[in-house]
């Protein structure tokens, strides 16, 4: 579905992404994992055209991304940025329905879709007329998810969707996410720095360090046979969870 070929990106002196090859097959959940600053978000941004690689290419369904197709491609991708990115001046309903409004859907069409998504994300309908600042962190993430799912995209890109949540809510949302993705058969690329989360959600895991892929493949493979010292340390650091 999405394929990165030998992509590199440099910010000033820093090589954020260094000649990476990555494939995200249709209907699978690809998890990018690694320490903070290793280039996970930059990779995700490349997939939705927010960052253009200095070299290499990004393919969406086998076609390279270009200016002309970008907008239509973006409407087939649901992207949830790290902080949620809900617009503070719009209510929950307006946030969710912003793209339909841009595309001039009938309001009734949006309402039907919103109702479906409320059910899917288990968000109370009473929250629709609130502003983002009147929501809890977990509620905000559910709203971001709804917005990303609004056009029923083929691909979901999620950048640390559960980043700042407390453990209880986090566990609950992880459950929900897994159900949603499996049920809808989405192609998912999810960024996290949490090993347990990766294990729970991933079909495939990619461990990154300093803009390079360290190890890629099955989650159990990563745990059982870390390829190098860094991978071993990374796994070791979060080991207690699996004890």
């Amino acid at each position, binding site marked *: 579905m999405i394929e990165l070929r030998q992509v590199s990106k440099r910010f000033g002196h820093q090589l954020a992404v260094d000649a990476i090859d990555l494939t995200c097959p249709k209907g699978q959940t690809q998890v990018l994992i690694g320490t903070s600053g290793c280039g996970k978000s930059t990779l995700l941004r490349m997939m939705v055209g927010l960052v253009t690689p200095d070299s290499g290419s990004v393919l969406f369904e086998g076609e390279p991304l270009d200016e002309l197709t970008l907008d239509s491609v973006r409407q087939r991708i649901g992207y949830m940025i790290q902080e949620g*990115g*809900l*617009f503070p001046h*719009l209510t929950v309903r307006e946030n969710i329905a912003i793209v339909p409004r*841009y595309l001039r859907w009938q309001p009734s069409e949006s309402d039907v879709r919103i109702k479906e998504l409320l059910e899917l994300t288990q968000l109370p309908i009473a929250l629709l007329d609130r502003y983002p600042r*009147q929501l809890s962190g977990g509620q905000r993430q559910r709203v971001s998810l709804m917005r990303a799912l609004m056009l029923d995209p083929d691909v979901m890109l999620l950048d640390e969707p559960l980043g700042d949540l407390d453990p209880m809510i986090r566990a609950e949302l992880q459950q929900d996410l897994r159900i949603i993705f499996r049920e809808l058969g989405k192609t998912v690329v999810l960024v996290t720095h949490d090993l347990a989360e990766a294990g729970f959600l991933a079909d495939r895991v990619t461990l990154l360090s300093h803009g390079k892929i360290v190890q890629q493949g099955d989650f159990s493979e990563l745990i059982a046979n870390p390829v190098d010292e860094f991978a071993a340390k990374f796994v070791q650091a979060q080991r207690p969870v699996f004890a």
Partner: protein
Amino acid sequence: MNRYLVIGLLLLVLVLLPSGSPPAGIRVGSKQDPETAILGEMLTQLIRSTGQPSTHLSVGGTTVVFDALRRGEIDAYPEYTGTLIKEIFASEADVTEAQLPSLLAKDGISISRPLGFNNSYALAVRRETAEQLDLKTISDLADHPDMRLGFSNEFIDRDDGWKNLRKVYSLPHERVSGMEHAVSYRQLEVQDIDVMDAYTTDAQLAELDLVLLEDDLAYFPRYDAVVLYRSDLQNRYPELVDKVLQLESAIDEPAIIQLNARVAAQEASERQAAADFLRDEFSVSSDIEDPSLASQVWQRTLEHCDLVRRSLIPAIFFAIPLGVIAAKLPRLGQIILGAVGIVQTIPALALLVLLIAPVAYLNLNTIGAGSMTAVVALFLYSLLPIVRNTATGLATIPPEYGESATALGLSRSFRLFHIDLPLASPSILAGIKTAAVLNVGFATLGALVGARGYGQPILTGIRLNNTSLIMQGAVPAACLAILLQVVFEYSERWLVPAGLRPLSASESDVPKH
């Protein structure tokens, strides 16, 4: 978003509302000093006595009023021959009084014969000094080298002042000090000095009973009062010109000093003083009853609001797009912000004078009520706060919102109108509020080009040193500024999207549904 459309339309209607009709009839101009204002009133009242309607507007500065006459925006105004020679025709060498009619005729302007008094420099002494020392002329001073002379600093420096006066009259005096003109009168009164410079028609001459020494060597240039009027007036209203020319040789120095003194002592308004003179000299009776204070304040409020609405609203429509451009194209933004910033540093009178030519070129009213010069100046002054706040408001939107909008596939224009501008709206509104309050204050300067409003009593009050008159303009202006401020505070609650308003206690609780 429809809200903004409604407001935009409302503002558009508001700015297109017709403004009060321009002053009717023959327009008489004058400068801002009391003496010419009195003469301007005389001209106006004389014209009215023929049955013609006429309005008097006093504006700031010789060039402003002369240009207005040249362009036909006013029909007549009082001037001094010396000013014509030294200021208007300063670029032409050695103009004599005899040449003035032909020079002025090139601009379609006629000049009356002198009105009978010369408002020039003179030297003044106390009456008892004059009597004791038998002083009659400036030449007589040469016999008294011990006298103490106190001159205004300007008089000491000017070419037609003390420097050459002492040479021409061979005056030996050593004890010469420079001081403020107003201080000289006081010093002379308490006998700290014996001789001072004065204007031959100063009101204080009568008050302090001073004697002017005759300029027996004709050293000082003459500043004979004359009336300048459009030559075509002769054809249009011949009887009216005859009437005005009655003033020729009709006002001598004691008479004008008396009139100036009455106005300075706040015994009579300029209008009243002029009316009394016309009644006594020409048996012309004028209806000069002033409207009540309340109706005057109301009238000025209308005039003032007119200036504000016609300058502020276009500034809003113009500045917000400029601010958007400045935010989106930072290079061009530097130039835009620089340009509107520079406008802010131009002093008001200079800006007004600079604008007269382009406004006249566009065939718009340069002076008088509803003067486009004033409106354009206020428009320019209002730009900076709005442009700057729009640009900063847009530039300081947290980048994650931009990233979300792009990733959602929204177009740039949709994003501008539905995301960026609403997010920047608190800042933009604050800019408009600042501009509005500044505008109300600056609008008082419109009176310099006769645009009336609250500035009119302030300017008159300043020239007459009349505090209560100044207050009649300053207090309502302050009230209007405060009122606007309050209106904006309230409209913020409506205009700023609810999700961006500061949290109130009740809102921060999660609402119950």
